[in-house]
């Protein structure tokens, strides 16, 4: 069972408990299918509050079928177009405080939209910090799941000062793996050494413009929805980072997502080519075999060849022990034996 599937199937089940989950999309690859799946797997007994700023809640969940999920459609609360937007923070906090004690899942579908509406990164950070405080002080294990695109706030949210434990899921286009394999000759584990892979993958993936280039360039597939494979399913690569989990320090893996389920990286169809090793080079074919004419010499032909005088003029002269350049100037040459550097005074 992959790490990603264990997170999605039971987000509160990891020991020690991880209250903060960050899902990161980018223009190169969206993480929405993971968020959708995570919400669908929430237990009916756990209360869930879904705050949607960018897309309507129906994109993420079937609101009628899930009585435990209360969705708030804030897509219309836009500064400058709706007068009620400034009370949003207090409204959200009040909603969370009004939930009866017990396990709670709080989801924000677009933290960068919230940040741009609030107008400042520090304000957004303070607000998230308050939210996280409310979630962690509940009596039962609860979760705060944030979906965002790369922004200055992301750096702040991943710091240990906000939360010592963290689950960070980042979506990458499959093109990133094929590119690293072909351009950097680095295969992902288990096909290659893990340390080498991470030392190449981490800096490359942090340069989001590189991933965007891979997708939107002439050779790319031009969409952030994922690579389309057969049967109308999409695939992409997911980088999973768990900090403060059962293993000490940071645990990092790369897994896959196919359709709406997590899978192993090897199961992704678009990445099949990176697992097959190149066959060892066969012995070069001898070009003098299998031709329709005779390339060999008869003995008399060899003798005639040996009698041909070679054009090297100094053949037969003893080889001087020191290397010397023997040059015979012809009529067009202007040879001057004086040393041109005689008047150089260094």
């Amino acid at each position, binding site marked *: 069972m992959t790490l990603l599937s264990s997170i999605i199937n039971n987000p509160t089940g990891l020991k020690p408990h991880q209250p903060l989950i960050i899902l990161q999309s980018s*223009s190169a690859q969206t993480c929405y299918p993971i968020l959708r799946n995570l919400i669908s797997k929430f237990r009916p007994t756990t209360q869930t509050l879904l705050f949607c700023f960018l897309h309507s809640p129906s994109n993420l969940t079937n609101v009628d079928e899930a009585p435990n999920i209360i969705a708030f459609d804030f*897509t219309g609360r836009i500064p*400058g177009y709706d007068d009620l937007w400034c009370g949003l923070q207090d409204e959200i906090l009040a909603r969370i405080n009004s939930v009866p004690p017990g396990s709670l899942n709080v989801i924000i579908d677009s933290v960068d939209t919230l940040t741009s509406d609030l107008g400042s990164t520090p304000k957004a950070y303070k607000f998230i910090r308050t939210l996280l405080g409310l979630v962690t002080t509940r009596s039962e294990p609860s979760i705060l799941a944030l979906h965002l695109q790369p922004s200055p706030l992301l750096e702040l949210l991943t710091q240990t000062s906000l939360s010592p434990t963290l689950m960070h899921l980042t979506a990458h286009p499959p093109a990133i793996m094929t590119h690293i394999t072909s351009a950097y000759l680095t295969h992902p584990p288990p096909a290659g050494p893990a340390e080498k892979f991470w030392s190449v993958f981490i800096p490359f993936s942090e340069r989001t*413009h590189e991933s965007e280039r891979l997708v939107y360039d*002439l050779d790319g597939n031009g969409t*952030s929805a994922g690579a*389309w494979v057969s049967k109308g399913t999409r695939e992409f690569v997911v980088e999973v980072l768990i900090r403060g989990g059962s293993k000490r320090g940071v645990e990092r893996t790369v897994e896959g997502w196919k359709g709406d389920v997590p899978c192993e990286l090897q199961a992704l169809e678009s990445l099949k080519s990176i697992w097959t090793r190149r066959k060892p080079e066969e012995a070069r074919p001898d070009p003098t075999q299998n031709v329709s004419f005779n390339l060999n010499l008869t003995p008399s032909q060899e003798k005639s060849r040996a009698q041909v005088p070679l054009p090297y003029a100094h053949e037969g002269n003893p080889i001087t022990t020191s290397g010397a350049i023997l040059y015979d100037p012809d009529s067009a040459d202007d040879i001057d034996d004086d040393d041109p550097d005689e008047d150089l005074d260094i």
Partner: protein
Amino acid sequence: MQFPTPDLVSSHRLLLITDQLPAPADFLLHRFLHLHLKQSKTAKCIVLAVSESLERWKSVALKANTNVAHSESFQFIDVFDQHPPSQNRGEGHTNKISLKYIYDLLSVKLSDSRTNGQIPLVILDDITSLEWLGVSLLDLSRFARALRTLCVKMDAALVVRHHIVTPPEPDALLQHLLQLCTYHIEVRPLASGRSGAVSGEICVHLGPSMKDTNEHVISRTSALQYRLTESSAVFFDKGTSTGVL
């Protein structure tokens, strides 16, 4: 081969059309207008125009036998002609574009047309020119969100055109629009350069928030090619144009 497929342009959707300088998507906007007005006598279309004038829309529509000059079903809002009632004359910014005013105007027009049960079509052509004229990215992204929410509320279909200037790297406005869109229609020039037989190619991508579906999707590898003609465009699969074969 027909494009667009019949229900690509439908209510609650934001269709983002991106084009590049060698392959402009004007023909597609005019085609959407033509197909929409052809559906029924009571169909309505509202154009928020930034770059093209009313005369041009009228003349191109006439070539496709769509009479928009006197019909009530076509409404034209020139973004630069709209000024909010003078509240702050003293500030001197009388020719500043007020997106909120345009939004309010559109809201009124859409609620007027709501009664007859037809899906109104709103075309914003184009949002990039607004950015080039100095409207800030923040204002534009909020305007796009507001338009989208308004069209969803009023059961309208929204089509937004964006020009791509740096093809391999999406600019900040494009990144915002890509997040919002339901479908992304990409009009690209041929990778091999200009050609007389093929003017360009069209792909349709799913927006990031959409659930998995193959409907309407045209990937880059199986892109639909088109050739511009006098009045509209001809669509064909790759390699099947009579000029190519």
